[in-house]
């Protein structure tokens, strides 16, 4: 029974990982990657390591996902330089813009 569940969870992790690679929507991909950690914490719990399971669930699936989501939101809505103060900032030069933001 426990073996069966381990195999099932392993397959779920594989599905989540592949989904994270192939999903077109980035937010969905981030959530899929987080689900891998969530299932991994269940695997740790089954294997008798509750301490590791707690860490994996809290850091791997919660905090990392949120950090990814925050950074994705930052990339999406980065402050556009106003045209009056900064003269020649075009969207075609993302690296330059990045430098200015940092």
């Amino acid at each position, binding site marked *: 029974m426990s073996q069966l569940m381990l195999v099932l969870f392993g397959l779920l992790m594989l599905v989540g990982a592949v989904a994270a690679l192939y999903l077109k929507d980035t937010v969905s991909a981030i959530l899929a990657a987080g689900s891998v950690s969530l299932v991994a914490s269940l695997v740790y719990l089954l294997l008798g390591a*509750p*301490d590791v*399971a*707690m*860490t994996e669930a*809290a*850091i791997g699936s*919660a*905090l990392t996902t*949120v*950090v990814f989501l*925050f*950074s994705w*939101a*930052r990339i999406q*809505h980065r*402050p556009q330089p*106003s045209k009056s*103060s900064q003269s020649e900032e075009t969207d075609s030069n993302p690296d330059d813009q990045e430098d200015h*933001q*940092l």
Partner: protein
Amino acid sequence: MMKRLIIILALAAIALGFFPLAMRISGDSGLTALATHYVEAGADELGAANLVTSVVVSYRGLDTLGEVMVLFTATTGVTALLVAGKSKSHKKEKDSEPDGDGRREGSELLATGAAFLFPILILFGIYIFLNGHLTPGGGFQGGVVLASAFLLLLFSDCRLELNHALLKGAEAISGAAYVAVGLLGLWLAGGFLDPRFLPAGEFGQLFSAGAIPIIYILIGIKVGSELTGIVDAMRRCS
């Protein structure tokens, strides 16, 4: 297409290479000599009911110090990168867009849920690291739960400003106190981070296992404030 085929072939080769390693793992192999010592003498020596904690905090305490250092360095890097530019762009953003087009308030549902869950999460986090020597979990896990409580608050209210001086102070003081406790172990007991300079107490009670609860409280506060700082630096609007 060709590229994908090569990638799949490379993955298959890696899987084939690691296959013997996976086959050689057997669940019921005996403990090594060191592990046997930890299992047999750990409870008597340190008085912690959770053996994992006595390994993490005391036997391998130096590794934990290294982990705390890694986290500290990562937090410093993230904060330096993100907050340094923030003060400059912050003002500009405020001038140009008073109410902001990308700025969204948390929904009513999220705000109510966060207000309800925040004290419970804080309590649960404190419980986890306070009982680290008795039940699974410890400073790291409890600290992350504390950070996730603050994370919920930050999600629900965009304009919430955390007290950065307090966060930094809590982090600095708990980090320094952690090293100080380690040095106390060096002077009063067997070695660096040896928790036995305090009485072992009654096995399985809250106040037992020497200085292990103190160490885990300090780690919990440190991890909690550091991760809260990272999340606060990462969020977009503020």
